């Protein structure tokens, strides 16, 4: 077995160090080594988006990043979306619109939608649907998800 590698990174604003095997994906490291189980494993091949995280602010599939690759970088997971004051408007609006059923895809959708709103604060419905094309939900049929994201975009920026 390959020697474990020491990695230093920032996750959700905190300095984190971990040991991992080179073959472990960032998703495996988050879930199995660091106990951050919010990111989900859906397809494990980059199709479903359930493991979405931000890597240096950029939306990526954590299953398609090696843990060793995050050395010196910054990771934001679903656990870093809410603030100490409360839920992020996206989380609140997902609840209000009942934009989930089984919930496995939800963390990925929320992280992906956060990345969208960071870049495009007032997206059109078309922009939301295009941006979320890499996130699959097999329960709800997407309409409630899209409505929740559009509604969250109307919340004042200071509150996001």
């Amino acid at each position: 077995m390959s020697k474990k590698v020491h990695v230093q990174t920032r996750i959700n604003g905190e300095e984190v160090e971990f040991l991992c095997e080179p073959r472990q994906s960032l998703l495996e490291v988050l879930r199995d080594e660091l106990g951050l189980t919010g990111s989900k494993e859906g397809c494990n091949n980059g199709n479903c988006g359930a493991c979405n995280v931000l890597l240096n602010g950029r939306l990526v599939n954590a299953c398609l990043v090696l843990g060793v690759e995050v050395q010196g970088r910054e990771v934001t997971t679903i656990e870093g979306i809410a603030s100490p004051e409360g839920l992020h408007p996206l989380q609140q609006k997902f609840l209000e619109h009942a934009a989930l059923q089984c919930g496995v895809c939800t963390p990925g959708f929320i992280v992906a939608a956060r990345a969208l709103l960071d870049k495009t604060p007032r997206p059109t419905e078309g922009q939301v649907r295009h941006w979320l094309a890499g996130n699959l939900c097999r329960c709800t049929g997407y309409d409630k998800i899209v409505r929740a994201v559009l509604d969250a975009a109307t919340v004042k920026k200071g509150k996001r």
Partner: protein
Amino acid sequence: MQDFDYVSAKTLKEAVSLLNRHGDQACVLSGGTDILVQLREGRRKARLVVDIKGIPQLNQLSCTKAKGLTLGAAVPCCQIYEDKTIAKAYPGLIDAVSLIGGIQIQGRATVGGNLCNASPAADTIPALIALGAVCTIAGPKGTRKVRVEDFCVAPGRTALKKGELLVSIHLPPPKPRSGAYFLRFIPRNEMDIAVVNAGASVLLDARKQTFVSARIALGAVAPTPLFIPEAGEALVGKSVSDGAVSEAAEIAKAAARPISDMRGAAEQRRHLCGVLARRALQGAIQRAKGGN
């Protein structure tokens, strides 16, 4: 996933030396959107993964009127389409990089990786061929250049020899009155692999009424992305007309050697070749005339 060692190479020399020493036991990691899936599924074996994202030459992204576009092999798609200068100068490349995968994939996937993965259906390759792109390769014996149309030699196999690494891709500066266009056919709206794809570029004369030159390439209809020089040559000196475009598209269609698989039947693909080659040419002509 299978067990391997990982090295993040910091220089070209280091990467070439590692690849040369480990031969086919080593594989190159850039965006990882193909390679990590292949390693996980056992479709590719490696004892050593060489991450090349830390090598300066592979992160070049420069676009000037005099020199054209130099695109480092480790530059992700999103960085290309977010660059306004590139988006304006090379819309035919933007067509391709903005439709590969979803946003999550575009944040990591690279044009260099799309080339090295050498899929017959790769979306950037017909666009690059149409634009006359040339690859710069580094190896134990120094650097060499290979035209994109000669880079893929079989499904999943490239012209790279032992110890060699794709460094960058160069696109010549767009000439006035030239235009390029790329499109693909998929049964869904997004997130799919091309049934057939097509790239075309044209250069028109001073009055924008006659073809000076043209290039057409098709994907997913042969073991490698297919450059069809005779289709472009058929347009040289001809007036810009629907008839001339259809004729060139028919030549492209005749050159295709499609197979039937889960994505489409050979007959359907052959039909699509004519349709997409024609539409790619029409799109390129419109851009050459100054439209979008």
